């Protein structure tokens, strides 16, 4: 029953597809592919500055990525990923096109991020692209590819947020939301801002959090609860609400710790609301207006 309900909420293969859904999906796919191409070039050009591996991650644990440094290979990798992503988008290539692009995209990422810390800012884009890759290999019909890709994305996005909440419980325990922890992280990030811009001054929310430990505690508590309920986005009924709360949490992280999640937030805005219904509404309006126009011309 639970699995049936979950599958129904994630994939909903029974429901007829509207024009709005088809158009929205293609626009959403273009957004993801656009980001994949942007990131692959951004990382590829940055690799020129890297000449040492501090902490290898992912496939870089098994294959030393040093051969990518001081060469044009990252650029060629970006060219290949771009060609494959565009070919996959226009469905003019074999089913494994997105999978090959995903593998090369992973390699570009682990080559770029070998310097000690792996950021998570592109994870949602990466997971969604992985979902596209799997959908294209496992399904033939476009409707099924679309429904599976979106369901896969909601499943792993929700799981990721809830997993982050559990990581905090495992890492620190129930005292994680102690406001003094936020003080430490805000101070840490203030050094990053000084390093990036040469200067730092606390904003209104940071000042409040530094002045009142209970405010800092409430900020952390709200963030943790929001992460914990991430899996609720698996269910259509709660999707918009949960994603709105998560967007709010990301804005809160930006305001307190100066960490921006542009790609995450942009994608969450697309994921959280029924843009397909808006497109359907727009199409219906356009058609009715065209009908009124033709009707009035006929009897004018």
């Amino acid at each position, binding site marked *: 029953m639970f699995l049936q309900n979950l599958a129904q909420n994630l994939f909903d293969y029974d429901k007829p597809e509207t024009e709005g859904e088809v158009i929205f999906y293609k626009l959403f796919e273009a957004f993801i592919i656009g980001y994949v191409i942007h990131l692959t070039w951004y990382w590829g050009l940055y690799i020129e500055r890297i000449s040492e591996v501090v902490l290898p*991650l992912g496939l870089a644990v098994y294959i030393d990525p040093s051969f990518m440094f001081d060469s044009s290979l990252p650029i060629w990798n970006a060219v290949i990923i771009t060609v494959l992503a565009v070919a996959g988008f226009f469905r003019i290539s074999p089913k494994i096109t997105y999978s090959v692009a995903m593998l090369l995209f992973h390699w570009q990422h682990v080559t770029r991020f070998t310097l000690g*810390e792996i950021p998570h800012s*592109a994870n949602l884009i990466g997971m969604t692209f992985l979902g596209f890759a799997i959908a294209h290999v496992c399904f033939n019909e476009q409707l099924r590819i679309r429904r599976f890709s979106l369901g896969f994305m909601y499943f792993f996005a929700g799981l990721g947020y809830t997993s982050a909440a559990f990581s905090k419980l495992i890492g*620190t325990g129930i005292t994680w939301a102690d406001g*003094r922890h936020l003080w430490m992280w805000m101070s840490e990030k203030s050094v*990053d801002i000084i390093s990036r811009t040469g200067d730092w001054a606390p904003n209104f929310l940071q000042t409040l959090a530094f002045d009142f430990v209970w405010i800092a505690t409430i900020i952390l508590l709200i963030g943790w609860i929001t992460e914990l309920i991430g899996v609720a986005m698996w269910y259509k009924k709660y999707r918009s609400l949960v994603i709105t709360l998560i967007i709010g949490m990301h804005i809160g992280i930006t305001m307190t710790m100066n960490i921006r999640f542009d790609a995450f937030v942009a994608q969450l805005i697309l994921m959280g609301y029924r843009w397909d219904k808006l497109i359907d509404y727009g199409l219906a309006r356009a058609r009715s207006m065209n009908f009124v126009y033709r009707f009035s011309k006929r009897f004018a």
Partner: protein
Amino acid sequence: MSQILRLKSLKIILITFLIYGGLVATHEGEFWPLSIYPMFSQGANPWTRALVRDVRQEDIDKFSQVTSIRELPGEPVPLGAHGIDTIDFSNFVSKTEEWTAERKQALRTMFGEDMIAEHDLLVMKANGIIQPDNEIIIEVVPFILFTPEGNFKLTDHQ
């Protein structure tokens, strides 16, 4: 038909989930884009970050001392304006355990010779701790100096 499709989809999700779990469990929680999202999971831990100052106009006695974040020597060098990712830079400085000639040269490569031609770049480690009275202390330690003449490690502080 849709029942079979749903079952197939759940099977794919389950297999992906198992591979996900296996990969993150055996790769320090990260196999991009798979992750357990461990950021900020440990509260109150002391931290180390890094920053850079231009000390071309400064006397070495003034910039070779441990100081506080409010009394930094020289002029600020905004790394963002030079296209350098500060997270990369901080992690490179704080997580490198042995400063071999290659590691120093790698940091120099990150800055680029054009930047070093214009500035004497003093890399400083910033160490943050919270005291029992809840005061946060940020101690800044001069670490490596990059000048057109070479790379000079100023302290044995790791």
